[in-house]
């Protein structure tokens, strides 16, 4: 039971990271109707920028951890958001009214560009950082000596995710931008006729998605203590799985799916085999799409002729 509780905590933390990435997929799919294949790599870029900002701040002599964290968060969000904007502008916007496969292939190309760009720019080796936030709480100690730990990083990841989700939900449901986004999701032509700047709204979608991915990258860096240029691919597919599981196009669904994937992966590693944890996650994607093509919270897709 204690082991289960510990794994549950670990799964929640991992799921929060997946959920943050999954929101980017689900938003873009909802509005533009394409799978932003490069989104996993945007997450990776976010991790790298966070790492580099850390290094600079530490070498500048800053020691106040909250200040460092805040600066790193803002810098990585800002720069990664610009990456998201640029990718949309270069690779997707010219193809918006092209045939269906074109944006998908362009996105795959963009994913290769980003992966290899960071390999060329930062080298192929794994970049570790020393444990930055240490300490934690012991929740429960059983008689046989097994301890349930809740580390400060885990608390931070979950709290950050909740806060961001709150801000994000407010943004989508209460602001002008959110209204524009929902309008574009329903009907771009009609939205344009009613004075919504469709281009700008789509750009903002990519910017927000990339910023959330940057937060996920920072969380990943803090939690696992390393980044490498190839981490975007697998994380991206898993986050996409999460988005599909939750019902693509649905924002709470993305978070729910992220948590589900995180938990499944953690429990699979804990109780069955670590080697096959990715196989488990991908199999779930296939099973979900067969039996629940609309996911947990998705709306059924109406087939128009």
């Amino acid at each position, binding site marked *: 039971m204690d082991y289960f509780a510990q794994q549950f905590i670990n799964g929640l933390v991992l799921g929060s990271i997946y959920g943050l990435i999954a929101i980017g997929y689900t938003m873009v799919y909802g509005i533009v109707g394409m799978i932003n294949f490069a989104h996993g790599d945007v997450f990776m870029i976010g991790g790298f*920028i966070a790492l580099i900002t850390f290094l600079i701040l530490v070498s500048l002599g800053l020691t106040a951890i909250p200040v460092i964290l805040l600066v790193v968060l803002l810098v990585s969000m800002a*720069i990664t958001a610009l990456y998201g904007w*640029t990718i949309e502008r270069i690779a997707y916007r010219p193809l918006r009214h092209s045939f269906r496969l074109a944006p998908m292939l362009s996105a795959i190309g963009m994913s*290769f560009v980003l992966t290899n*760009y960071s390999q060329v720019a930062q080298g192929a080796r794994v970049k570790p950082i020393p444990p930055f936030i240490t300490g934690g709480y012991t929740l429960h100690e059983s008689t046989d000596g097994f301890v349930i730990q809740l580390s400060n990083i885990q608390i931070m990841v979950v709290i950050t995710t909740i806060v961001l989700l709150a801000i994000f939900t407010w943004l989508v449901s209460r602001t002008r931008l959110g209204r524009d986004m929902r309008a574009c999701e329903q009907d*771009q032509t009609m939205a344009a006729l009613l004075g919504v700047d469709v281009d700008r709204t789509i750009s903002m979608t990519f910017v927000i998605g990339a910023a959330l991915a940057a937060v996920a990258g920072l969380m990943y860096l803090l939690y696992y203590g390393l980044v490498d240029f190839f981490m975007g*691919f697998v994380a991206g597919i898993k986050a996409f799985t999460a988005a599909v599981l939750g019902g693509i196009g649905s924002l709470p669904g993305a978070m729910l799916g992220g948590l589900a994937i995180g938990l499944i992966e953690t429990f699979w590693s804990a109780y069955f085999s670590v080697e*096959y944890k990715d196989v488990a996650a991908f199999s779930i994607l*296939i099973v979900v799409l067969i039996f629940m093509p609309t996911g947990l919270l998705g709306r059924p897709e109406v087939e128009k*002729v």
Partner: protein
Amino acid sequence: MTAPSINTAKPATGIPALLKTAFINAAIALVLFSLMIGIRTEAGSDGQLTYWTRFGELASLVAAVFGGSIVIELLRQWIGPTGTEKLVPPAVQSGLSFVGRYLAPALLIFTLLVPVIFYNQRYILDLAILVLTYVMLGWGLNVVVGLAGLLDLGYVAFYAVGAYSYGLLATNFGWSFWICLPLAGILAAFWGVLLGFPVLRLRGDYLAIVTLAFGEIIRLVIINWQSLTGGPNGVSGIPRPTFFGIPLDNSDDGLAAKLGIEYSSTHRIVFLFYVILALALLTNWVTIRLRRLPIGRAWEALREDEVACRALGINTTTTKLTAFATGAMFGGFAGAFFATRQGFISPESFTFQESALVLAIVVLGGMGSQLGVALAALAMIGGFELFRGLETYRMLVFGMAMVLIMIWRPRGLIGHRAPTVYLTKAQAISSDLVKEGHG
């Protein structure tokens, strides 16, 4: 209803506007590259991260973006507004069709003569075999993507199944290549059906992701099932192909000895060349024949409109399954050939990048055009060879090329998607009926 023109970017005119655009682009580039290029991090021997600055590279990259955007802007003003699809004047078109008619036979004759012309150039022969392997993979995937319109991002899985089928059967049971080749094809086709069943209900992008997941699952199983596949170490010592039982070596039973000619290691390369050429031509021939059968027509109908297809009484289940199985079978053949040519296979040869490369060949070739796929394979693999020295930049350039080609010609170099059958009388259809993007 046509899509509204929501491209609000006005063409910049005059020098100040030009410079302004360039400055903005350079500023964006400066922010993008500032940390990723301007700072280089590396883990030291003690695990401590260090960094150093590279402002020179940063400055030159930003300058390149500045100059590049001026050049692009100027070109855009000279050439005028370009759509994604450019109209070709009729004279050029007829010339092209004339070339097109004779290009394929000429290319085939040249390919047949390659081992004769380049007999002493081992490098070119090896490259030619590689190109032909990808031509075959491209033609195989073309059945799934180009004809049936099912986007398959996990095609490499069938390639892997074929390669491992031959590799394991040959090393464990000592079966010969010519027995294993059909077996590899059948096994791959079986996996194709197995994958096909669950994904039948999926469409478009979902299908793409599921096939991608399937490809990754196969690769992960190969890596982790060490007792069978040898895991990351792969399978080595895979037997070389024989000339229908006669080995191609310098032993007394070898083909050279039997024919009474002097042994040369090139014989085997030439033999391999003709084997893959025959396999590729088989793929091509089968595809062309299938296109004229009801099943091929059903594939094309499925590609154009699945709902209409079902309304016309075509069984979409079997249609999709046969497309998957046929494509997978050719992938399996190519895999078996790959295993026998390399003599060694490992999971590293079957990554997602391979799938993307083959898909890029099919798309660049114009999705459905057999000649286009062959030319695209030549261009892609040839282009890869040009960047051989720059291993790390290779995939970077490949990715950029993929994006640029999609923007420049989303339909591929040879946009050939006309159905094989036409109605004799042309009918005017309103544009929104033929507009794509549904499904």
